[in-house]
């Protein structure tokens, strides 16, 4: 456990069982900021993703949570090769897909598909549902022979809980939840192994959200899928994920199994994030200890030195400005086998329960972020 510099999660107990299907190492995406028209020179960079490592096991769901601008969607785009990383590796079954091109890349892409957030803009309004779901077969004709495609599409509609007779309808004839089902059917068309879902339910109403989440749960078992599930809703991520990574300003700051993150968070950002989530239980409001953070997330073009969370952290000390905390099991928990012993990028990691448990604990010391 000495060599953990590269965020090598693999040898740790958090690691998924068996060989990981996807290994992400040192993933970076910087968007250059340029000045001048004739002589463009780079004056800086928006560091959207700034060194992300994680593993995804076969059949596993990895949840990635974070607020807007933390880089979670950029990670998703790089996983499906919609964006080329500035640096780092994405190894799919050992091959680094960032270095692949041509036929080899095409073959890999078939196995990593994406479901988008907004079911209203991610479906072409001029194409029928059959054409939308069947379009992947145009690019990968080996998956379904031409004569068979219509039947395949109808099967897919059935699988996601839509009437196969709707194959000739257009997206506007469907509700938001049904459209998201169409998006999922398109993602499944090529029988991928990995689905990257970027906020797949955030545009949906509560009662419909549950339907889509249950569908994704069912499909995972049925098709042995691995999910990278990206969302800002912490409750949904807990529900669906086996492991969770919390992102802040382009980096994963804490990662572990769902109970480790939710019931035993050690990073102050995770604690603040969890404590801010409204809990649908009015009895809890008197007992809850809330950590209200001050200010906004700094600009990714101008990331604070040392620990990137220090500008909003109530624990920040001199060391935090000097030294970048590594994502590793904090020293104080290293020899424990308990749930607090998971990767957390904080110099002053400390276990703290912020999600009210049953039975509700007596109220603790009031915390405010000002100290």
């Amino acid at each position, binding site marked *: 456990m000495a060599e953990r510099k590269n965020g090598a999660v693999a040898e740790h107990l958090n690691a998924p069982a068996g060989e990981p299907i996807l290994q992400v190492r040192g993933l970076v995406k910087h968007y250059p900021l340029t000045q001048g028209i004739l002589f463009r020179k780079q004056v800086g960079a928006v560091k959207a993703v700034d060194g992300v490592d994680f593993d995804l096991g076969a059949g596993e769901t990895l949840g990635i949570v974070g607020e807007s601008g933390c880089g979670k969607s950029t990670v998703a785009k790089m996983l499906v090769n919609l964006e080329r990383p500035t640096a780092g590796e994405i190894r799919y079954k050992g091959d680094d897909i960032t270095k692949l091109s041509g036929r080899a890349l095409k073959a890999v892409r078939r196995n990593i598909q994406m479901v988008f957030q907004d079911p209203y803009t991610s479906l072409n309004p001029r194409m029928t549902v059959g054409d939308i779901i069947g379009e992947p077969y145009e690019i990968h004709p080996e998956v379904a022979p031409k004569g068979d495609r219509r039947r395949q599409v109808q099967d897919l509609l059935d699988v996601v809980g839509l009437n196969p007779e709707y194959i000739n309808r257009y997206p506007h004839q469907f509700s938001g939840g049904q459209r998201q089902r169409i998006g999922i059917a398109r993602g499944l068309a090529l029988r991928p192994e990995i689905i990257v879902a970027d906020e797949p339910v955030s545009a949906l109403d509560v009662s419909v959200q549950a339907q889509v989440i249950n569908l994704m749960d069912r499909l995972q078992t049925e098709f042995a899928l691995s999910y990278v599930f990206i969302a800002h809703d912490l409750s949904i991520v807990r529900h669906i994920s086996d492991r969770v990574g919390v992102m802040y300003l382009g980096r994963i700051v804490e990662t572990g199994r769902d109970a480790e993150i*939710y019931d035993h968070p050690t990073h102050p950002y995770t604690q603040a994030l969890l404590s801010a989530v409204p809990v649908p239980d009015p009895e809890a409001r008197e007992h809850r200890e809330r950590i209200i953070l001050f200010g906004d997330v700094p600009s990714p073009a101008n990331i604070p030195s040392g620990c990137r969370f220090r500008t909003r952290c109530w624990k920040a000390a001199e060391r935090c400005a000097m030294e970048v905390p590594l994502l590793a099991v904090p020293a104080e928990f290293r020899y424990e086998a308990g749930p607090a012993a998971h990767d957390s990028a904080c110099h002053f990691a400390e276990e703290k329960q912020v999600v009210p448990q049953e039975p509700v604990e007596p109220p603790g010391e009031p915390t405010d972020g000002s100290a």
Partner: protein
Amino acid sequence: MTDVLLEVRDLHVEFRTRDGVAKAVNGVTYSVDEGETLAVLGESGSGKSVTAQAVMGILDTPPGKITSGEILFKGQDLLKFKEEERRKVRGAQMAMIFQDALSSLNPVLSVGAQLGEMFTVHRGASRKEAKAKAIELMDRVRIPGAASRVGDYPHQFSGGMRQRIMIAMALALEPALIIADEPTTALDVTVQAQVMDLLAELQRELNMGLILITHDLGVVADVADRIAVMYAGRIVESAPVHDIYKAPAHPYTKGLLESIPRLDQKGRELYAIKGLPPNLMNIPPGCAFNPRCPMAQDVCRTDVPPLYEVTEAGADRVSACHFWRECLNG
């Protein structure tokens, strides 16, 4: 001790469109006391925002039309007011906070000018006074460096700061009633907590009535005193917040509560309300929820349930379900 501030009685609103008449609000009745927070909970298309627009008098007419009902504000029926009188109430006595602060603020005017406008228009203040008031308001909603940022434009502020400016604008004339339509939906959780805290604090300070329109059951549990749950343009259940989470008396409320994933638990399968919300041009006969309801009987398909007084499990509760008793106990 407390007085009823606003009372909406049997309000009906229709939208006449080319495809037919959409019945957006079908007999909504609710009331808000001074200093009270009423959460109006519902999914898209449930009529929660349309009701609020009718109360504020900012409904687009046509195509919208208030067909019947009363909106009593401090005892006077606003629907009988002339537009001129209505305008004096709006802003000064009741104000609204919208969801999307970026599109609700004028992009070509500085925030100071937009805040100050409240005082020049309603109070006849000079521009200098208005500017001073604007700075005071920005301070009050804790925008750092208010005096130096008063000349900034909306795009120069972050989402949370813009929502603070919206709150400042609503509070400017210290109205008795604030209607907040999904005020934190567009914000991140940590910022949402900041904004909700601020809103609750200012409400206490000024003893305002607050109508909080939302679809988020978590936010409701955190701040509301009472809840009114809407479905297909009607209130289906209304109760004090503690009672409703403990024992819902309407199958729709119950379904909603069971369908949300919990932060503190990891369940395997979520309960999902089957089907979709009804098309407002073609609301099912009887109880509008009957096609999706696990408890529906024949009577639900024929008779519109009235608002029954729920006499067990807490006072001051109503439910529009023929079988509220079974729902409560099962």
